[in-house]
């Protein structure tokens, strides 16, 4: 029983940006039917990421080159609340499944189309993956060191687009619930990424100021960085925002002589001398693990948190108590998957189905949802409609 029980999604999406969105929707209790074809495989189908991105979904196979498959797709849409796709613009139209055609089948259908540029503008004709969209969005320029090149964002970028898709889809579902109206949502992956630097964009349109990457620097705080700790590639993040926190920090580290230096007497001075400040702090953190630094500073009211690497992230006592993974059984294999953020008190995220085999739910979708007989389904198989 999830928050979106009763909602059905016809999911034509593939790769990561679409499927990660529909995975969230499925985890919220909606019935998501993933439409695939052996004639054109999802790039992730036989890779290690498939289960993580496509768990919770039902799987049906439809060979979109066959006219009968298009008819079935339309019937499925008639029984669905929303359609999700992330093909290049024009592909769904080419199938005869564009928004206008789908509206004829179901007047209040919600359709979400995600592509690099939202279907308009010079970027619409470009091919690419998330790292390219990051480059075009300006976001890459905001990440990295001041004296270094822009930074690539790879997997996370696809998921950022996916989460943007999920927000829009949920907004449309709520709107439909209120008004009975469907909509065509078109989403630009480049804009989804640009939006992650929204206030930086606004600083340019308002003040003509071009913000760029600054490592961990903050314009109003010092100390504000990651500091090297004992151990290989081991870091702790420390941020101090008030004079009170600075005084508490000094006391917590045993008030070494350098903390009385006028260079560090107040906020502005510390920002000006942050390079020296950081070096001196590193002498202290360098003798301790990130965990030890956190345990010494947090009781003093100082924000110190390790820059967690995977084993410490999943192994630390807080996460172990909160629980962020769930075990899923896939045949003989047990796998651990990461849960989406957010604990809902009444309708928690549902995580109980691994990624389905291709066509695993043909019987259910075609038989139960669309009402076809077993013979009709066998005929379709023979005709290659369910390839």
């Amino acid at each position: 029983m999830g928050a979106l029980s009763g909602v059905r999604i016809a999911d034509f999406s593939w790769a990561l940006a679409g499927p990660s969105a529909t995975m969230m929707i499925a985890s919220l209790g909606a019935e998501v039917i993933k439409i695939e074809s052996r004639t054109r495989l999802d790039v992730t189908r036989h890779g290690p990421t498939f289960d993580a991105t496509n768990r919770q979904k039902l799987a049906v196979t439809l060979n979109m080159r066959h006219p009968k498959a298009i008819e079935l797709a339309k019937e499925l849409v008639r029984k669905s609340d929303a359609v999700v796709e992330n093909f290049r613009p024009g592909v769904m139209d080419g199938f005869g499944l564009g928004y206008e055609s789908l509206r004829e089948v179901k007047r209040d259908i919600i359709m979400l189309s995600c592509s690099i540029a939202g279907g308009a503008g010079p970027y619409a004709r470009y091919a690419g993956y998330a790292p390219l969209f990051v480059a075009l969005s300006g976001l890459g320029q905001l990440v990295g060191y001041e004296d270094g090149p822009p930074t690539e964002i790879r997997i996370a970028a696809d998921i950022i687009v996916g989460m943007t898709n999920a927000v829009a889809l949920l907004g449309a579902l709520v709107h439909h619930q209120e008004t009975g109206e469907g909509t065509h949502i078109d989403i630009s992956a480049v804009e989804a990424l640009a939006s992650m630097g929204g206030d930086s964009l606004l600083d340019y349109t308002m003040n003509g100021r071009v913000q760029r990457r600054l490592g961990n620097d903050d314009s109003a705080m010092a100390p504000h960085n990651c500091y090297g700790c004992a151990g290989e590639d081991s870091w702790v993040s420390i941020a101090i925002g008030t004079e009170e926190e600075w005084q508490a920090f000094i006391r917590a580290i045993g008030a070494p002589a350098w903390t009385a230096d006028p260079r560090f007497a107040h906020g502005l001075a510390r920002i000006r001398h942050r390079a020296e400040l950081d070096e001196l702090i590193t002498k202290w953190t360098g003798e301790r693990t990130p965990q030890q630094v956190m345990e010494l500073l947090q009781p003093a009211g100082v924000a110190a948190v390790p820059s967690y690497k995977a084993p410490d992230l999943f192994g630390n006592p807080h996460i172990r108590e909160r629980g962020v993974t769930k075990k899923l059984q896939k045949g003989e294999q047990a796998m651990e998957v990461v849960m989406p953020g957010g604990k809902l008190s009444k309708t928690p995220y549902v995580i109980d189905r691994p990624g389905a085999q291709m066509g695993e739910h043909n019987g259910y979708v075609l038989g139960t949802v669309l009402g076809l007989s077993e013979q009709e389904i066998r005929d379709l198989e023979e005709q290659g409609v369910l390839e």
Partner: protein
Amino acid sequence: MVAGPYCGKLLADMGADVVKVEAPLGGDVARRQAPFLNSLPHQDGSVLFLHLNTSKRGIQLDYTNPLGLGILKELVKDADVLVEDNPPEVSDRLGLRYEALTELNPKLVVTSVTPFGQSGPYKDHKAYPLNSFHAGGEGYLTPLANPLSVNGMLERPPTKQGRFVGEYEIGMLAAIPTLAALFHSRAGGGGQHVDLSKQEALIGLNFLEMAFWLIGGPVPTRTTRMMDIGGIMPCKDGFVEFCLHEEHQWKGLVRMLGDPAWAEEEWAQKPATRAEHSGEINGHLREWLPQYTKAEVMELGQQAGTTVAQYNEIPEVVESEQMRVRDYFVDVTHPVAGTRKYPSAAYRFDGRPLALKPAPLLGQHNEEIYRGILGFSLEELGQMRELGVI
């Protein structure tokens, strides 16, 4: 600080009636954050505040004061959703617990955004956006190494992303269960509590990174995930990104480089052997690139059929034909900040860009809400103001 308001912004910009509750004196701390419009500190001039609070109505209310808390509870009776980002011990102390609020309004969805959630040994730990980003594990993997920067990379600290990328991500990840819970409530399911730990939101965002490790892969670090062929490369006037996954994109790359002789070699015909020669291939690319601007590389590359894009700087994004055609930047008129172009959203509903409204002045909608909705008289408003409640 940023994530909670951003969650509210997402809902407001999509048309929800979002009422922002601010402390009577000074308002939201973001009002005091630089940069400011024209570099003039002003409570209605903070770029961050103006961005995060578009389309919201605004009232002043001190709900740490028992009288103020009473007023908040009145407001909550008619609300669908409450979004708050108080530390758990503060919510506890004030009686802002979900259990108390649900008695007033069983349909209410309460979304609490905190660094580490409402339970667990770290729930009262302090975290600024920098700390939350590193708490979630993505910090450790940033910046992603590439052949240009990999030497000595691990001696430098891992970083956050941009100013508030992590916070915007968290805001979206808060909006998702909030909207779902709203849908559920309106379907008759009643309200519920959404306990959004910023740390867990970011762990969830990085589920794929972690998936590799969870199935027994190596511990991901900044250097374990470098692309072998391509990635970020410098050219005449900036940087471009090559990201190849399919055979036809490789063929396009070869075409772009003018079908050089080395591409005819045995090892260049199959992906597996190509990967072994990635250093050599990248070397050829780096010889070719300095002759061309990033725009030229993108055009030539895409025409030839490979997957390459230029790294735009912010001005190039804002001034691009692409953004103009899509109306991604929309005019918003604010009484103090004037009319400026604001980034809207990546989504269009039925082809229309979102119609953003300006962020509220401090207490701009006090009358509208206190008199209009709660029925306070002018005298009562005056008394509340004097007491510092509003």
